[in-house]
């Protein structure tokens, strides 16, 4: 996973509420067995509309996306995170995210920033003309107009994002503890520990 410290640049002022994972990446794009190249299918329906934000030159390569409530709701498809990354988006700012999407984003080094709606509204306004700066270390979003919004983030997630840590590797190092749990659980609940077909 790529370490992430700061994200600076133009932000796509999408603003929509309940942007679901079928909107982020429609099902026909899920047939890949790779993580690459999904940017082509990202927001396909929205991009089919003339004059859509994604095709406006000022937002080309924008690293930030600003959305409404419940971004990433719907399916567990990690393809949604891979599609955003492929578009070059490494930070999404919204009033709330679906639980599964925010986990998927985190595991791919995408920073999800939760801010209240009135601050989102201000950022949506700034984003139409100017860049936005997101700093993970200080947990702030700033604009060229002295706006400064603080955000919360889980300390463990922050640490992993700053260091680009691989969670599987971290957990594999806890092998002994997992083995002890298995031995205990197998003794207490043998009926769960070993599914055998009749």
């Amino acid at each position, binding site marked *: 996973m790529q370490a992430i410290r700061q994200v600076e640049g133009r932000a796509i002022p999408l603003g929509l509420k309940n942007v*679901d994972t079928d909107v982020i990446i429609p099902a026909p794009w899920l*047939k890949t*067995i790779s993580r690459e190249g999904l940017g082509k299918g990202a927001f396909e*329906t929205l991009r089919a509309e003339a004059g859509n934000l994604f095709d406006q030159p000022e937002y080309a390569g924008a690293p930030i996306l600003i959305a409404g409530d419940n971004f990433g*709701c719907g*399916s567990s498809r990690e393809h949604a995170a891979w599609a955003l990354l492929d578009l070059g988006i490494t930070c999404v700012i919204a009033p709330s995210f679906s639980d599964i999407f925010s*986990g998927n984003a985190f595991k791919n080094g995408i920073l999800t920033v939760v801010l209240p709606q009135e601050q989102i509204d201000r950022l949506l306004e700034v984003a139409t003309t100017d860049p936005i700066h997101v700093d993970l270390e200080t947990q702030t979003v700033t604009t060229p107009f002295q706006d400064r919004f603080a955000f919360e983030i889980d*300390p463990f997630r922050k640490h992993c994002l700053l260091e680009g840590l691989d969670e599987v590797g971290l957990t594999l190092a806890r092998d002994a503890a997992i083995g002890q749990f298995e031995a205990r659980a197998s003794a207490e609940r043998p009926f769960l520990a070993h599914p055998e077909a*009749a």
Partner: protein
Amino acid sequence: MADKPRTLYDKIWDAHVVERRDDGTCLIYIDRHLVHEVTSPQAFEALRVSGRKVRRPDLTLAVPDHNLPTTARRDAAGQPIPIADPESAQQLAALTRNAPEFGIRLIGDADPEQGIVHVVGPEQGFSLPGATIVCGDSHTACHGGLGALAFGIGTSEVEHVLATQTLLLKQSKTMEVRIEGPLGPGVSAKDLVLHICGVLGASGGTGYVIEYTGQAIRDLSVEGRLTISNMAIEHGARAGLIAPDETTFAYLQGRPYAPKGAAWEQAVAWWRSLATEPGATYDKVVVIDAAEIAPTVTWGTSPEDTVAITGTVPAPESFADPSKQEAARKSLAYMGLEPGQKLAEVEVQNVFIGSCTNSRIEDLRAAAAVLKGRRKAANVRWAIVVPGSGLVKRQAEAEGLDRIFTEAGLEWREPGCSACLGMNPDKVPAGERCASTSNRNFVGRQGPGARTHLVSPAMAAAAAVTGRLTDVRELG
């Protein structure tokens, strides 16, 4: 701490903590891992690249479901019919290759037990109460209907579970959704859960695990409970839970992977001990009167856009939230509906009975009861019934349900996810409407431009008969 009354969720959580960190993050042990072909290839590839193996292949079950065509899979000579879409074929082939390579059980497309992973898990007794169950699929919430803590995960987490049999998680908040009183005649589990989606909103359950309680829930069969918990994710909750009881035990006993003999007795004793204790508190409680619930349909492009079939399409201005007004305007434009239009006058050209929400035997019985002796309307161009598994299909055929469907003019198909999301050839054409027993009415979900109205199996059958959204209670 030990004396504080605990909820069902607290008890399952506590029983699965491998390690607890200072910040509250826990390493949680996973008892059952279901794998399908869409969200697993990149996880297996990552294991291969890093030289990692699957820690507990015996706790993992792989079943292909999303890409499989629901038309015949064997020709007259019994030979497999190749899958036309090369990408679908490639994804299915990857699962068929990866499962044996990593020592994982595979119920393949030619096996009689094959079906939608969320139908197969409970049906095989692989999914059990009190277990932690994950799958790279958000509708894993379904298994909570058995009293399992079950939730969807992304592909990185699939890899994490394959390699370590654990996940790093923070404990969720708890919500009780209590449905008081019995459901009325003609009102099913699907109507109830659509109603809940409307009450809570698409993000109302975000950050929570919801326990569904009350008489209307207790009265449901396991099939109905799976339907409820299946759609927990559609109101934002990663997992739903329904306390296991005699109905649950009767459903599971004797299933292939369910415990046997003394182990069964021990399991039942533990399952009984899991119920939320008197005095335990939830972070939030929502109470719904079952008498208020009518057969329910969706009008928009979010599962929260629900309305009784007796109602009308709402005006965007009727919503207080400006962003919801905007969303409603977009939804109505996409759906081709006008505010004030009666739902029962909306014509449909397609009917889909299937998906992990509503493809179990009871769902097919409910649809068949409406269709028996009737014919689909002339304006209904395409109507398919897709059983949730090969075993459901066989059971339905033994009961003669397949003949009721085909005599009514509906097509009887092979099991799979099908037109719920159209990764296989089953799609709804742009601009056409579908009365669908699936779980999502998102833009483009059933095909680009497709207009989805979520309904119960009985309501889908009624729509097939009249050619429009219809209050099934009027058909008698």
